C-alpha cells in the first residue's frame, strides 16, 4: 500500500536535493495544453517529456511546463523549446515517440530535430 509515510520519506530525500536544483534551467520545454492540444494528444506528449527528462537525468538543466493555446491549432500537439541566446524551436504534430528523439538529440545532444519542426511541416 502507498502510504503517507512513504511520501514523508520522499520529502526527506528531496529536501537535501533542493539546494542542488536551484540552479537556473538552461532549457524550457513548453507543451500547448488548450482544448485543441489536448484533443490532438498533448497529454501523453507532456507526460513523455516529464518522464524522459527525469530518466535521462536532465531535470537540473531542463524544465517542462504547460501553456494554453499557441495559436496554430492545425499543428497540435505543439511543443516549444526555449534556450537562452538561441531562437525558439517549434515542434509540431508531436507524439510520445517523437518526444524520445527530441530529448535524445536536442535536449541532450544540442542538435535540433529538423524534420519535426514547423518549418519542415510547412515546406
Amino acid at each position, binding site marked *: 500500500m*502507498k502510504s503517507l509515510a512513504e511520501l514523508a520519506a*520522499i*520529502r526527506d530525500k528531496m529536501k537535501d536535493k533542493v539546494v542542488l536544483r536551484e540552479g537556473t534551467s538552461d532549457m524550457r520545454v513548453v507543451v500547448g495544453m488548450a482544448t485543441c492540444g*489536448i484533443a490532438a494528444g498533448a497529454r501523453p506528449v507532456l507526460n513523455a517529456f516529464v518522464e524522459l527528462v527525469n530518466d535521462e537525468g536532465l531535470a537540473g538543466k531542463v524544465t517542462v*511546463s504547460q501553456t494554453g493555446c499557441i495559436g496554430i491549432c492545425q499543428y497540435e500537439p505543439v511543443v516549444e523549446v526555449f534556450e537562452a541566446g538561441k531562437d525558439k524551436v517549434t515542434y509540431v504534430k508531436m507524439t510520445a515517440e517523437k518526444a524520445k528523439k527530441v530529448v535524445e538529440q536536442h535536449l541532450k545532444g544540442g542538435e535540433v530535430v529538423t524534420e519535426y519542426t514547423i518549418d519542415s511541416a510547412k515546406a
Partner: protein
Amino acid sequence: MKELSLNILDITENSTKAGAKNIIISIVEQGGCMTVTIKDDGCGMTKEILQSVVDPFYTTRTTRKVGMGIPLFKLAAEQTGGSLKIESVCEQDDPVQHGTTVTAVFHTDHIDCPPMGDIVSTLTTLIGGNPDVHFLFSHQMDGKTVGLDTDELKSVLGDVPLNTFEVLKWIEAYLKEQYDAPSSI
C-alpha cells in the same frame, strides 16, 4: 475527445485559468448514470459570457473568441442522452463567494458514451501544472470510492512542491492502487 478524462482535463484547465485556488472534481457513477462535477472558486463568468459559452452560436463575438472546450463536453454528454449545466457567480457580483460549477450527466449504458480513459494521468497532469492549487478528487463507483486531497499531501510534504517528479509518481501509484483495489460488492 477520445476519452472523458481528456474533457475533464480541458474543463479543469478553465478553472485554473480563472485563478481558482480550490478545485473539486467529483465523478459519481450510479446504475447507468455518471455525474461529473468540476467546481472552482475562480473569477466566475458574467451573465453575458455564461450565455455565450453554453450557446456558442449566440455569442456577440466582439469581446472574445469562441471556445471549444465547453461545447465539446456538452456535446459528449448530450450524445448519451445526458446534459450539461453551468452555474457561475462572477467576482464583480460577489467578491467573496464567486466561482463556477460545471455539471455533466452521462448515460453510461448508451452506445455513444466515451470511455473514461486515463483519469489518473489527467490528475497528475493537473497537479504537475498547478502545484499550488488545492485539488480535491473523488470518484465514486458502485462498491468503492477513489479519492485524493492535495492538501493532505501538502501537509506531509511541507516545502517540497507537489510537482516534484517523485511526488507525482507517488500520486500516480497511490491512485492506481485505489482503482485496482477490489470493490466491496
